[in-house]
């Protein structure tokens, strides 16, 4: 299966990646190889086989509705952020990102 340059552009756009021409070319051939490899599965007859969504066969892994203290809360979040900021000099702990909208 061939992956077109347009499809690479589309995927990059969706993921907000800025890619160089070299990166695009290498991704194009990597993705083609991955899809080719996975496509071998379609040679199998899967009529009547339930789709596998997960391999652990677990169900109902849930927890009760109780608040737990967080060790890695706001301070840890802000450490990961390139920039945070408040309006008019007041620190209000919001993450600052380039204008969207």
């Amino acid at each position: 299966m061939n992956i077109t340059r347009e499809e690479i552009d589309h995927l990059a756009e969706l993921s907000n990646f800025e890619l160089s021409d070299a990166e695009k070319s290498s991704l194009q051939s990597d993705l083609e190889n991955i899809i080719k490899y996975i496509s071998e599965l379609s040679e199998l007859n899967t009529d009547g086989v339930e789709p596998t969504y997960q391999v652990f066969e677990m169900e109902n892994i849930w927890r009760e509705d109780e608040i737990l203290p967080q060790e890695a809360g706001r301070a840890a979040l802000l450490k990961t952020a390139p920039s945070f900021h408040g309006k008019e000099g007041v620190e209000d702990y919001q993450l600052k990102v380039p204008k969207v909208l």
Partner: protein
Amino acid sequence: MKYEITIGIECHVQLKTKTKLFSEVDNDARGKEPNSCVSPVDYALPGMLPRLNKEAVRLAVRAGYAMNSEINLYSRFDRKHYYYPDLPKGYQISQFYHPIIGAGFIELPDGTKIRIEHAHMEEDAGKLTHFSNYSLVDLNRAGTPLIEIVSEPDIHSAAHARDYCKELWRAMTYAGVTYGDLYNGNMRFDVNISLAKPGEPLGRRAEIKNLNSFRSVERAVEYEYERQSKILDKGERVVQETRGWNDATGKTTSQRSKEEAQDYRYMPEPDIPPIRLTDEFVKEEQKKVPLLPSDYRKLFKDVVPSDTLEVLLDYQPLMDCLWQCADSSFEGDTERGSASSSAARPWRWAGRTRPEKELSDIAKSQIKRVANLFSSVLLAEEKSYEMLNDLPSAAQLNELCTMADKQELSSTGTKEVFLKFFDPQMKEKSAKDIAKELNVLQENDTAALEKIVDEVLNDPACSKAIEDFKNGQEKVIGFLVGQVMKASKGKANPGAAQQILRAKLKS
């Protein structure tokens, strides 16, 4: 109308769980600092593992029952990918292929049924605030549990669009799955609108995103009808797009978001194993859903005028209170304020498993009277919202109704006593004690009334009136009743007094 309008509505409902959908973090960020309610799950540190909140599943089951939907015993989560700063993972965990809530319907006040296509659980995104050259991100809301309710395109007017949203809000708040605070975005509506000439296929639709009041839903639909009509009149086609609503200008505007964005690349969420519910689990939750507005409409039809009922239906505690007055077999807590405790609620499940009970004539008359007192006396008062937090008990109201029925209270007296049920000084007292204190009990004792009537008839000042009445002047009876009322200091029951007067004058 030149064009037929077709509307489908998607509604996001925030569930009132204590923690988020996939993390053990406080879900109530009201009044808290930005980003103070977050964990690595919410801000998507690599390696984090989301864990499903069971309470969200319970509330979703209840929500499904409140929209007459089947619950899918098997459901699971999918990833919906899009890139936006309010979504740190780069995908939203949602339910695309196997939602928990199946087809159902919401019944509008006029009886129209709007079908629900399905409803699914998903997590909310964070909150963005935009400035001139940057945007700020607060992730307190990221991960709040939502259910998204998707209607069929069954709505064909602005009024029905508004009614549907309001009815959905009532159903969800009655069912106790959300706080329903519209101002704070607890329920948000996306409205899809398309026009077509009668008999022709649907035109392209516009989607108005993120409306948060019933009125704005109605106005946005009215505006879109005009806007799209003008485009079609010119022989042009409507652009399929997302539009935003501006409450101040009363207009929708194009939100030219990238056309690329519609490619969500759904895939099964591998971190969350599927949900498989038992019938018992589902039944247990369904039993927690009280009577809903549509149930009350059926129950109180022919008893409470529909315009009165529609006003009262906005206040669930009032409806509980009405129900308790009606249900003579009611064995719950009859203390004050019990209407707002869940133990005293009438449950929807009961109506489903036993044939609908016919209301007795007494129950009907009580409901009618109490409904009338609430709508004409209480809701007309200033501060009535505060009063709604502390409603009288069924026992107090029933006694008041009985006294009114027995003519122990005039209609004015009944209202006066009723209002004292909300007076901090008197609210704990019985209707009779309050009536005594206010001195509004009517004199019904025949012997006592006869004595007063005799006094009036023997009063020389009345002799001319008596003579006139005997000569056929009917109207004079009013004057004589007035004299009895005066002699009794206003406490005589005027109807009874008139009867006795007539009997004595005839003899």
